[in-house]
């Protein structure tokens, strides 16, 4: 058989053009799936955000490895005392990859394109995050070429953090005008890497930007390739065909860590995986039933067993890496006796039947089917007969994000990955009653007026200390009401060629290669 390989290799030399010799300054990244779009304003999934990040900047950037805010395309900024007006001073001498100069007009264009339905280029895409990021923006004013002023309708504390998100990326107006809806296939930004080519199903190629305002990256080329199967992706890393991969199967992690020439990097993620109750419907409109389910599930066994330590047990709805986390809040311990007792008190001494919706996969969902099968088994031990219904991810999201009166959901599972590092991005968006679907992401239809008040107040308060207090209080109330069963916070894990130096995982899950070097 070795002979066959040799023979075939020989044949290759004869018929096929020799495979590209691997360049020492290239990093090939194995993604989970094909990016959907490379237009940063349209991104809703990880594969797209990972492939697009390197090509764009925003006015404010996250620091390497954290959600601290540092100057990006804006060198400095001021906030008015009433918290309504943000003035950004722009970096001078920056050019987009197509040569268009970066200026205040480009900033105005990038924001208004998304939020103004009458903007001439509004129809060049679907801007799913526009409302979330810029919903509170009243107007964008160009003061001069290098000064831009954003006025809000009401004070909004996380606004600066929003300005570092994908949807706040500044795109080249010339390119959008030129390509229209095809801009998503011909992205032009100011980032450290320039777009070269996108072959659907095969790869996205980018090369370093020699004129990058923060210095040309040492890595000359980055190639993103979709490899759908976890096992195949891992095998290609081992074979040296990929340099950097995501989603290592938990049961392979130990083995991969011992592999020569490969290193594994991990970091607690800004993520939470949880079971959602429909709190507006029987039986889950009774907090005792929700608490009973919380007691009935052995969350630690799920984390240690199924996830093999690729996540940490959730104590709270908020991950500990986000500021405002309340360390005094503890998750419900595993206590089936207590669960049964609560069920009896609530009038269900013999349990009940319920459907549990489960997606087959999806970003951040870890091992949904296995985890839910375990949850189902734990529930059956306290008399709750859960029937699992599986859906493909897209179908699943469509079924979950509907009005409360239309919702057929009883129990389902979901995960959330933070966008901007602000607690508002977890607590308000997932648990305020102002965020019931289809407008927001509170699929539990959870409503507690006191929680609503705390979260709203935290939104309009700019003082971080005061905000922290408000959030800590909210977490206590939420955990007591138990609209969810928080299970775990997924650890971000990547495996890479050990010659890659200086890579830092980012809490938002994107990859940044501009400061990375490759040891020869």
């Amino acid at each position, binding site marked *: *058989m*070795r002979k*066959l*390989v040799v023979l*075939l*290799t020989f*044949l*290759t030399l004869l*018929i*096929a053009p020799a*495979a*590209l010799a691997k360049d020492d300054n290239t990093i*090939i990244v*194995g993604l989970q799936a094909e990016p959907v779009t490379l237009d940063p304003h349209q991104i809703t999934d990880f594969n797209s955000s990972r492939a697009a990040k390197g090509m764009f900047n925003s006015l404010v950037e996250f620091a390497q490895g954290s959600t601290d805010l540092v100057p990006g395309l804006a060198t400095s900024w001021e906030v008015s005392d009433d918290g309504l007006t943000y003035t950004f001073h722009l970096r001078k001498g920056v050019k987009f990859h197509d040569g268009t100069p970066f200026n205040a007009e480009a900033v105005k264009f990038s924001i208004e394109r998304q939020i103004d339905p009458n903007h001439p280029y509004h129809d060049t895409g679907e801007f799913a995050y526009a409302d979330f990021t810029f919903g509170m923006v009243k107007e964008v004013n160009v003061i001069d070429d290098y000064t831009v002023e954003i006025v809000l309708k009401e004070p909004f504390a996380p606004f600066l953090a929003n300005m570092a998100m994908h949807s706040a990326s500044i795109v080249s107006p010339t390119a959008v005008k030129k390509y229209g809806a095809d801009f998503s296939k011909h992205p032009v930004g100011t980032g450290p890497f320039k777009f070269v080519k996108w*072959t659907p*199903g*095969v*790869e996205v190629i980018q090369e370093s930007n020699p004129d990058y305002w923060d210095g040309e990256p040492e890595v000359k080329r980055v*190639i993103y*390739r979709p*490899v*759908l*199967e976890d*096992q*195949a992706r891992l*095998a*290609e890393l081992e*074979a040296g*065909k*990929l340099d950097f991969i995501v989603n290592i199967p938990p049961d392979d992690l130990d083995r991969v860590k011992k592999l020569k020439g490969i290193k594994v990097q991990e970091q607690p993620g800004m993520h939470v995986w949880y079971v959602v109750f429909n709190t507006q419907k029987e039986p889950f409109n009774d907090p005792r039933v929700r608490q009973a389910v919380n007691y009935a599930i052995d969350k630690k066994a799920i984390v240690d067993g199924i996830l093999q330590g690729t996540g940490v047990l959730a104590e709270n709805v908020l991950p500990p890496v986000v500021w405002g986390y309340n360390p005094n809040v503890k998750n419900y311990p595993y206590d089936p006796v207590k669960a049964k007792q609560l069920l009896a008190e609530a009038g269900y001494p013999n349990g009940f039947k319920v459907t549990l919706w489960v997606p*087959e996969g999806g970003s951040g969902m870890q091992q949904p089917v296995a985890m839910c099968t375990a949850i189902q088994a734990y529930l059956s031990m306290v008399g709750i007969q859960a029937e699992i219904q599986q*859906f*493909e991810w*897209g*179908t699943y999201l*469509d*079924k979950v994000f*509907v009005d409360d009166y239309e919702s057929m959901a009883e129990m389902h599972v979901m995960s959330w990955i933070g966008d901007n590092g602000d607690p508002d991005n977890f607590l308000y968006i997932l648990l305020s009653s102002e965020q019931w679907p289809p407008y927001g992401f509170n699929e539990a239809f959870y409503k507690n007026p006191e929680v609503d008040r705390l979260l709203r107040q935290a939104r309009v308060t700019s003082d971080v200390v005061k905000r922290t207090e408000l959030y800590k209080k909210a977490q206590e109330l939420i955990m007591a009401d138990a609209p969810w069963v928080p299970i775990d916070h997924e650890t971000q894990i990547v495996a890479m060629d050990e010659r890659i130096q200086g890579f830092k995982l980012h809490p938002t899950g994107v990859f940044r290669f501009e400061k990375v070097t490759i040891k020869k």
Partner: protein
Amino acid sequence: MFRYIVKRLLWLIPVLLGVTVLVFSIMHLSPGDPAKILLGPKATQEALEQLREELGLNRPLYIQYFTWLGNILTGDWGRSLQLKREVLPLVLDRFKATAILTMTSIIIATVIGVISGTVSATKQYSWLDRLGMLISLVGFCLPVFWLGILLQLFFGLKLEWLPMTGMYSPGSEGNFTDLLLHLILPSLTLAAGAAAVIARMTRSSMLEVIRKDYIRTAKAKGLSQSVIIYRHALKNALIPVVTVVGMQVGFLLAGAVLAEMVFSWPGIGLLMVNGILARDFPLVQGSILLVATSYVFVNLLVDLLYVLLDPQIAYD
């Protein structure tokens, strides 16, 4: 013979109509409003009305069917809900991968089947014959998806000789050698069942021919065993084999979905199954229509080929 061919071509009409009716009814049998199914749950009321108007969903079913058929014939196969792309180019592109897999499998199956069937027939009741038939029985009963996993385990994981999944290694798209390496396991997997059928068929057909008069005559004339087998017997015995091979092309075309699943082969079967799970009806309809139609035409070709080889059949 001409009459037979005309009859055979005319038979295409009801068959293709049947195929389209079946594919058409997939969406109408399934619970739910077709317009909602087609546009997805986020559709606006106006869009729904417009589509109902366009498809004539308020009109009688047979009119809807002919409208749909008209669209299909003019190349408008709809848009995939999930992948947000035109269905026709999408299914054609994926069909290529399935065709490569199926064709390779049928070649392998034919070579293995004919050789082992011939050997079995010429050595009837020998241990070689019995072994051959036993292996073919096993090959016949092996679930495709299990055989695939066995091969993956052995050649992919244990020996590390061959890639376990996919059509190309990342970065080698279009590279012929890479394709060949990736093709070996899935095509062997898919070929096993067909090879067993072809071997059985070749064996029984050979036995039939060997007993015929002209072979006895040839033997009496003192021609050597191998000349008889390869010059005379095989040629005649292969006529029914051709049909079986042709039918297997069709079965493999559809059965490939299991091999595609095991080996993540980017074929049309995988697309179809994902489409069903995502309730992506235009995609499912398009892929079923394409596979069924190509199956019908493969059958037609086989039947015509058969008449060419054995004109006798046309008169039966």
